[in-house]
């Protein structure tokens, strides 16, 4: 186990595709679906099993925005920054989240590992702008205040369950 990722499981996923190079992307998608991100060890394992250079695997992983190379929080917050949401002030929401989670510089995941903050361009729900999703659950017509309240609620639930 490295960073909560089971290498046996990773190998099993690769083998389920017959360790075929042509299935590289599908393999990466499946592993990411399970662990939310692809660690360096995972990429090395894929390269080894498919008998290709790890630079090639890294190349594919960094080409598609859907792949994440960093460990992500339990809750993934996506703030829409498409035109409609931007015009309806998505940026202050984003800033409020950063401030609440104490994210510095390029940091995207909160220190407690609970939240990861991302932006997306247009979720296709412009009528509900500004839109935020948390683990794919849509929250429409958000405000910075409502957002912080939501975060506090999740934090409280997590603390209670702990």
């Amino acid at each position, binding site marked *: 186990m490295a960073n909560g990722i089971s290498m046996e499981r990773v190998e099993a996923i690769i083998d389920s595709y017959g360790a075929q190079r042509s299935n590289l992307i599908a393999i990466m998608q499946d592993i990411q679906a399970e662990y939310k991100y692809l660690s*360096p060890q995972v*990429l090395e394992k894929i390269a080894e099993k498919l008998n*290709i*250079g*790890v*630079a*090639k*695997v*890294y*190349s594919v992983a*960094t*080409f598609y925005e859907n792949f994440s190379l960093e460990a992500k929080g339990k809750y993934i917050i996506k703030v829409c920054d498409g035109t409609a949401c931007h015009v309806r002030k998505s940026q202050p929401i984003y800033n409020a989240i950063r401030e609440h989670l104490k994210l510095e510089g390029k940091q995207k995941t909160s220190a407690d590992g609970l939240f990861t903050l991302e932006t997306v361009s247009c979720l296709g729900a412009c009528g509900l702008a500004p839109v935020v999703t948390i683990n794919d659950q849509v929250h429409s017509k958000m405000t910075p205040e409502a957002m912080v309240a939501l975060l506090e609620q999740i934090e409280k639930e997590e603390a209670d369950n702990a």
Partner: protein
Amino acid sequence: MAKGIMYINGQRVPFDGEPNVLAVIRKAGIEMPTFCYYSDLSVYGACRMCVVEDERGKIDTSCSMQPRDGLSIKTNSARLLKHRRMILELMLASHNCNCTICEKSGDCHLQELALQFGVRNVRFEDNREVLPFDDSSPAVVRDPSKCILCGDCVRVCEETIGMGVIDFAKRGYNMQVTPAFGRTLSQTNCISCGQCSAVCPTGAITVYNQIGAAWRAIHDTSKRVVVQIAPAVRVAVGEAFGLPSGKNMLDQMVTALKLMGVDEVYDTTFGADLTTIQEAEEFKARLAAGGPFPMFTSCCPAWIKYLENENPKYLKNVSSCKSPMEMFGALLKEKYQAKDAEDGRTTYHIAIMPCTAKKMEAARPEFATDGVPDVDLVLTTQEIIDMIKESGIQLPQMELESPDTPFGFGSGSGVIFGTTGGVAEAVARYCLPDKTKNTLRKLELSPLRGEESIREATLDVGGTEIRIAVVHGLINAQNLIKRIEAGEVNYHLIEVMTCPTGCVGGAGQPIGRRDKKLERAAGLYTTDKTAIFKRAEFNPVMDDALAGYSEEQLHHMLHVNYVKE
């Protein structure tokens, strides 16, 4: 293969089997600008410098266009010129243009084409973050600020060498060429072959330059600077002075080096003879013992590094012989101990090699005595060219001077080490019992010579059928191993050279296309033809050089064990 007539700028040009329109254009005597096209590599079609315009005004890349009968194209229309200038301008906009102090200056393709197309002004600005310089490798240096993303290094490392150390990462504006995770080369499986630097059109990957250290040693009066020159160097060095590839310039180099302040100049061919004898004896012993087979040659340090990094189970199959350079270095340092004690100077040994991997080899701990490397410094052919030029020496006008005695003499079979098939042929000459010209003739006509990437020959050694394979371009060796594992083929002896065409095509040589490398190889075979002694065992200075050492001492100096327990 397609045949027909094309029209290039209105001129009739017949074609017959050319792989693409670019090749037909070049055949017609028009030099098309390219950044991302190499005939040995897959077609990438990214730089768009090679564009042509068809009759309907459609613009497309000639490197990825099939020749068609009746096809009519222009190579230099106003639109095309504008297009090329624009591409160059965009490239320069995201390029660190400090030409005067760039390692590649004078040999840079970007510089050359910017000049050729008269780009004098860059209207765009570059705001990308500057990626770190990587000088962690003993062989090559990466400067991402000079990269134009042509992908040549990516393809050569993957398709020719089979390593896949570097690749594109990210996309669009943020795209870069880098090892995985932005690592440095020293954190990867890189084998230091340097072929990425040999194809890089700009200064983004260059050979690790050690000219400064060489001058310091030469100017240090407490040091006796002793040089060895590898076979492949002598047939390439003249290219930088307007001479044809393949012309043997060894004797002019001796004079030049002495003028520059080098004390003694020897010939690596002597080391090659040592290797031939040791390796052939080892091979005979394996024949007697029944293996292990195949026995792989060990001269190429990049090949050894590949085995260590990716395929260690075959290290036991590698000959225990050190490379000619390291055999020479060990023997030389041993011999000169007494001399050093006598006159109070230290012998500093410089090897001039066609190879960047030799820089890595020289730094290996196996090849040091009491912490001092047997070969103190490796200079590439290109570095010695730069030093000769810096000294103002006109190499073609130098008088001829033979290398010094006693290690300045090698046989013809030692000279051909510099090209693919040479080591195998030298060993075969030693092993075949018939010592007449017939053997030489037979070997000359055998598949041991040639440019095919994998060649095989069967020889009768005293009643035993010996199967030999010769392979160059490391990916071909990797594939051959797979075929052996699959039980499709097997051999007694396999010669492996990482670089296509062997060391004449090493990454330390002046930059050139494949035909130049083959001319260099031809130059080595010509030298062999005119050599007085054609066989290592007939080298007249060999016995003297080895006299007085015990079996054990010799083994220690000339052999190495790469297998890690």
